[in-house]
C-alpha cells in the first residue's frame, strides 16, 4: 500500500485547465465513489477549490501514474499534461497535505479558508466510508499541524491586500469596527472590496455615493448599504467613522473645508480616510486635521507588501514544524511503515 497525492493548482495549471478538473459538491461525491471503484485504490479523498484539485489515495500497484491516467480519463482531458500535475508519494504526500492545510500552498500565503475546505473534503469522504486507517490518521495529523503552524508562527499575520490593510488601519484607530459608519465615495470594484472587508469586521452602516447615482444604488444593493446622492455626501460626514474614496475623478473630491465644516458637530471624534484612487481623491491637507487619519494607496500597498514579506519569512519555521510533526506521528513517510490505524477517529 502506498499513499499518493495527485493534484494541480494555480502554480502548475492555468485557469482553463483548472476549470476542467474543478468539481461541484455533487461532482465530488461522484468522483470519490468512482475513485474507490478502481480495484487498486482502497481509500480516497478528493479536494476541489477554486485554485486546486487534489486526490489523496491509498493505492496498490502502479501508484500515482495510474491515478493520473484515470483522472484525465474521467474528466475527459486530452490537452497537454506537461507540468500540469504534481505527484507526491508517502512522506512527501503527507507533508504536502500539511502545507495545504496550513495555507502555505495557497495563492494568498497563510489564508485560512483552505483549512475549512480540506476539513470539509475529508468529512465528505469519511461520511461515505471512503477513508480508513491511513487517511484518517493522515488527515487528523494534518489538521493538528495546520493549527500548530497558525498558532506558533506568523504565517497568517498582517493584511496582504489593500482592502485588508484598510481594515487593519481602521481597527488601529477604532479598536473594533462593530457599529461603525462607513461611506464609500465611488462605486468601483475596489470600493466594493474595501467596504465588504470593513463589513466583515462589524461595520454596520455603509453608505455609497457616486456621480452616477444608479451605480451607487447598484453597489449599495449588493453590499446591503444605502445610496446617497453625490450632491449631499458632505452632510453625512457628521456621523461617519470611515471614508473610502475610490472615484475616477481627475481632481480632489474631499477637501479640508468639507471636514472643517463638521468638526464641531462631530465633537472632534477620530475619522479615518482611505484614498485608494489614482489620481488621489482626498486632498493631503485633510490629513493635517488633528483627528483625521488619512492613508493613500501607496501606504496600503506597502503594508500589504510588508505583510506578504513577513509571511514568506515564516515559511522555513513552518516547514520545520511540519517535519517535526510528521516525524513524531510515524506517518506514511518511511515508505515501509504504512500501517492502517484501526482506531476510531472523530473529524
Amino acid at each position, binding site marked *: 500500500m502506498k499513499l499518493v497525492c495527485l493534484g494541480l493548482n494555480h502554480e502548475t495549471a492555468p485557469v482553463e485547465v483548472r476549470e476542467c478538473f474543478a468539481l461541484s459538491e455533487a461532482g465530488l461525491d461522484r468522483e470519490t465513489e468512482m475513485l474507490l471503484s478502481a480495484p487498486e485504490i482502497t481509500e480516497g479523498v478528493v479536494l476541489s477549490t477554486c485554485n486546486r484539485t487534489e486526490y489523496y489515495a491509498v493505492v496498490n500497484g502502479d501508484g500515482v501514474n495510474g491515478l493520473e491516467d484515470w483522472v484525465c480519463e474521467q474528466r475527459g482531458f486530452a490537452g497537454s499534461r506537461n507540468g500540469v500535475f504534481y505527484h507526491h508519494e508517502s512522506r512527501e504526500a503527507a507533508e504536502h497535505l500539511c502545507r495545504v492545510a496550513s495555507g502555505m500552498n495557497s495563492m494568498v500565503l497563510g489564508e485560512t479558508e483552505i483549512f475549512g475546505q480540506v476539513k470539509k473534503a475529508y468529512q465528505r469522504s469519511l461520511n461515505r466510508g471512503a477513508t480508513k486507517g491511513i487517511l484518517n490518521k493522515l488527515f487528523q495529523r494534518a489538521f493538528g499541524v495546520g493549527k500548530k503552524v497558525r498558532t506558533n508562527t506568523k504565517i497568517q499575520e498582517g493584511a496582504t491586500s489593500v482592502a485588508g490593510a484598510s481594515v487593519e488601519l481602521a481597527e*488601529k484607530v477604532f479598536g473594533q469596527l462593530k457599529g461603525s459608519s462607513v461611506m464609500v465615495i465611488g462605486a468601483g470594484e475596489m470600493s466594493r472590496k474595501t467596504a465588504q472587508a470593513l463589513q466583515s469586521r462589524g461595520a454596520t452602516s455603509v453608505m455609497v455615493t457616486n456621480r452616477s447615482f444608479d451605480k451607487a444604488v447598484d453597489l449599495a444593493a449588493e453590499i446591503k448599504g444605502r445610496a446617497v446622492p453625490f450632491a449631499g455626501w458632505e452632510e453625512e460626514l457628521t456621523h461617519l467613522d470611515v471614508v473610502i474614496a475610490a472615484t475616477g475623478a481627475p481632481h480632489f473630491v474631499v477637501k479640508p473645508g468639507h471636514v472643517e465644516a463638521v468638526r464641531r458637530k462631530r*465633537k*472632534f471624534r477620530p475619522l479615518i480616510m482611505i484614498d485608494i484612487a489614482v489620481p488621489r481623491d482626498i486632498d493631503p491637507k485633510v490629513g493635517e486635521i*488633528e483627528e483625521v487619519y488619512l492613508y493613500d494607496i501607496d501606504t496600503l500597498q506597502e503594508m500589504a507588501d510588508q505583510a506578504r514579506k513577513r509571511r514568506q519569512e515564516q515559511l522555513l519555521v513552518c516547514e520545520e514544524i511540519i517535519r517535526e510533526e510528521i516525524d513524531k506521528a510515524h506517518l506514511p513517510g518511511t515508505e515501509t511503515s504504512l500501517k492502517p490505524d484501526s482506531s476510531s477517529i472523530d473529524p
Partner: protein
Amino acid sequence: MSIPRSSHLKGEAGEASYMGMEIWWLVLSTALAAAGAVLGWREMKAESGGRSAFWFMTGAFCCQLMALGWRGELRGKCPLGDVGEICLFLSWSLTLFYLVTGSTYRLSLLGVFTAPFVVLLQGIALVPGAFDRGFTRVTTVDPWVEAHAAFSVLSYGALALAAVAGVMFFILNYRLKHRQLEGTLMQGLPSVHRLVKAMARITLVGWLVLTVGVITGLLMKSGSFNVHLMVATVTWVLYAVLLGVYFVRGLPGKQLAWGVTSLFVLSLLVFAKL
C-alpha cells in the same frame, strides 16, 4: 499586619537606629515593579499581551501597602509627611488605578508605561534621607487633614495614570500620522479610540477623588484658605474645565492628551515647589 510597637517606635522614631521595615517592603515592591516593567516590555515585543506586568504590579501593590502601613504606624497618622512617603503614596495610588483600570479597559500595555514610572517614584523614595526619621508620633489627628492628604494623593495616582495614557496617545498618534505603521510597539498599543476614552474616564475618576480632597481640605480645623489649598483648588478648576470642554464640546484626542499631561506635570511642579 501586626506591627511590633517597641518603645522606641512609640516615641521619637528618629531615635531608632535600625533600618525601617518599610524600606525592605519598598525595595521588594520596586523590584517587582521593575520586573513587571521588563517582562511587560519583553511580552510586548513578543506580542504576547503584556499579562505579566499586571501580576507583578499586583505584587508591588501589596508590598506598597505593607510599607505604607508601617509608616502609618510610625507616624500615627496618614503617612504623607516627607518626600519618601509622598512618592510611596503616589506610587501606591498609581498602581491601584492601574490595576483597576487595567482590567476594565484591557489596557494591559499601560503597565509597560506605568511600571517604569512607579520604579522611578519609588527610586526617589529610596534615596537616603527621603524618609524622615526625626518626627514624633502624633497622638491626636485632625481627620479632615488626614482625609484631605489621602484623597489628594489618591487622585494624583489617577491623574498620573491619565497622563501616562496621554503619553501613549502621543506615541500612537505620531506613528499613525507619520505612517510608521510597522513594529512591535505599534502592534502592542491600544487603539486611538480606546486611549482617548481611557484618558477621559481616568481623568474624571481622578477629578472626582480630587473634589473630595479639596472639600475635606476646606473642612480642616486649620482651615484658613492657604496657598497650598489655593493651588489645589486651581488645579481642580483646570481639570474641571478640561473635562467640561471634552464632554460638552468635544476635543481632538491630541488636545486632550496635551491637557492631561501638561496639567499633571504643572500641578506636580507647583506642589513640589510648595
